[in-house]
């Protein structure tokens, strides 16, 4: 078991380093000079040269990479060119908003996807199955940004029931100031008992979360269905039938437990898709998270920031996968007792 974990951690580190190097190399290939962006177009050659030195651009590429990696480990992720702040602190400020949205999206995806997949498997070949499969395939065919706009059109424009901009209503925030602990409005307002803010931030979260959840929900429903159906065809299910167990028990208990093991790894996948979707829709919902930070950084050719965001996501993602792998190892006795 420890060997398993150690192996996974090593792989994760390798992936992270690989991503950093890859992004670094590609970013340095960008047409456009970060030094010019740093000091502006009217700088003198001396200022330009000094900027180049400050940004470390005058050193050979491999040296730059090593410097950067060393800096990462010690907490120096560079200075963002477009915010002039340390990248790490920028990430800290902007990340919670994205985390809130990703978490909400994942929650919805699993909440809807798993029961739908089970329903689909239970009635395989019949109407509920066809219905769920249709919904699921539409979910994975849906362009996320379009869904966001259409839902905004329907629920905000036409029906006027849900807000579409920002994480909460600024008027409500002014009237009921929110103490920031986690910088996630929904959590903070809940913890502080600030009900007006809780309501405001929750309603603001609904539409974006649904949009983020659509694709992963489809994926989850399909995987759960496939996994359950496959399990139902296995030898051990046949034996439980031969032993006289009712079909209901076989499905809900004997087939479900082994079938859900692979679903644990699906959670990692769900996280990945939720993350991607969050990035795509933050701008549409005026959501002040990493997605908009990344978009701004790309526009400004802000290399330290772009690499910082990429690295952050890489680490976050690798850690999430690692956690899922470990959980799966615990849940599946075949891995745990190797």
């Amino acid at each position, binding site marked *: 078991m420890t060997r398993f974990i150690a192996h996974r951690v090593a792989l994760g580190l390798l992936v992270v380093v690989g991503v950093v190097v890859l992004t670094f190399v590609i970013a340095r290939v960008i047409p456009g000079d970060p030094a010019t962006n740093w000091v502006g177009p009217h700088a003198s050659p001396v200022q330009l040269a000094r900027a180049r030195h400050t940004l470390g651009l005058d050193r050979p590429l491999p040296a730059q990479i090593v410097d950067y990696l060393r800096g990462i480990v010690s907490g120096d992720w560079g200075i963002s060119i477009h915010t002039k702040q340390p990248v790490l602190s920028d990430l800290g400020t902007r990340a919670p908003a994205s985390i809130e949205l990703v978490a909400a999206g994942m929650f919805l995806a699993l909440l809807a996807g798993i029961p739908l997949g089970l329903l689909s498997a239970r009635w395989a070949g019949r109407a509920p199955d066809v219905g769920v499969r249709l919904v699921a395939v539409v979910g994975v065919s849906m362009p996320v940004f379009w869904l966001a706009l259409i839902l905004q059109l329907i629920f905000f424009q036409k029906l006027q029931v849900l807000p579409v901009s920002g994480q909460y209503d600024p008027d409500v925030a002014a009237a009921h100031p929110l103490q920031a602990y986690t910088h996630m409005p929904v959590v903070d307002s809940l913890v502080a008992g600030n009900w007006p803010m809780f309501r405001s931030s929750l309603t603001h979260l609904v539409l974006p979360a649904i949009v983020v959840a659509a694709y992963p929900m489809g994926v989850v429903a399909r995987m759960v269905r496939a996994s359950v159906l496959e399990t139902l065809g296995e*030898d*051990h299910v*046949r034996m439980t039938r*031969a*032993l*006289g167990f*009712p079909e209901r028990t076989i499905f809900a208990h004997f087939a479900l437990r082994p079938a859900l093991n692979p679903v644990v790894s699906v959670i990692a996948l769900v996280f990945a898709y939720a993350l991607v979707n969050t990035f795509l829709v933050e701008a549409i919902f005026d959501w002040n998270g990493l997605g908009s930070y990344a978009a701004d950084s790309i526009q400004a050719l802000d290399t330290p920031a772009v690499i910082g965001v990429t690295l952050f996501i890489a680490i976050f993602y690798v850690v999430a996968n690692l956690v899922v792998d470990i959980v799966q190892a615990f849940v599946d*006795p*075949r891995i745990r*007792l190797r």
Partner: protein
Amino acid sequence: MTLSVRGLEIRFGERQVVALAELDVADREIVGLVGESGSGKSMTALAVLGLAGSVGADVSGSIRLGELELTALSPAAMRDVRGKRIAMIFQNPVSAFNPVFRVGYIFLRTLRLHGFGKGEALERARAGLHEVLLTPDLLDRYPHQLSGGQAQRVAIALAAALRSEVLIADEPTSALDVTVQAEILELLRGLRQRDGMSILMISHDLAVIGQLCDRTVVMRNGTVVEAGPTASVLGDPQAPYTKELVAAVPQIGAVA
């Protein structure tokens, strides 16, 4: 307990896979059902347990356990028969157990399902394992921690613990080493001896049939081609197909 099958027909849509006129297992008798793959022997076994429907087949005919007509039973009544009165053991014993549960869990849960109280279930489990020469601590293991032979013994122990009247053994030794095979056959004999079980032994291996079965039924393409006491069916086969089967068995020391 006796098992009588009459006029059994099994179809998949238009395609008929079994047309079995007559198959009997007398009380405390071990009957061998021989045939190659596709001869319909496994489907017959499933039909006896009322499980042919779960693989999409249609079944007609009469299957009687003693006086009870199984084909006329409600699904709930048939579930009571399964395990309790007719047990089945399978070809791949390790994969026959649910991989995420301890073997003992399945064992005890099955006993509880068929009406035995907690304490009694535990007692029977211990007794059953004892009968197959295993120690009770094996119940704490997961299926992948057991060898094929051990897993098959646990399956047999379960049938013994349930005090089933009929055991259907579907190729129980085909996936096991020859030495383990002999032990399993011995245990099956024990089931007949000590627990009075009638056994329907399905196999393609004539040697196994020869060692274990009182009577033998030979199937081909879903029908019976020959039936009778094992000694005569294997020693002096009448049907051409049976002759081929017997002739195909390699003899140690014989020249090809």
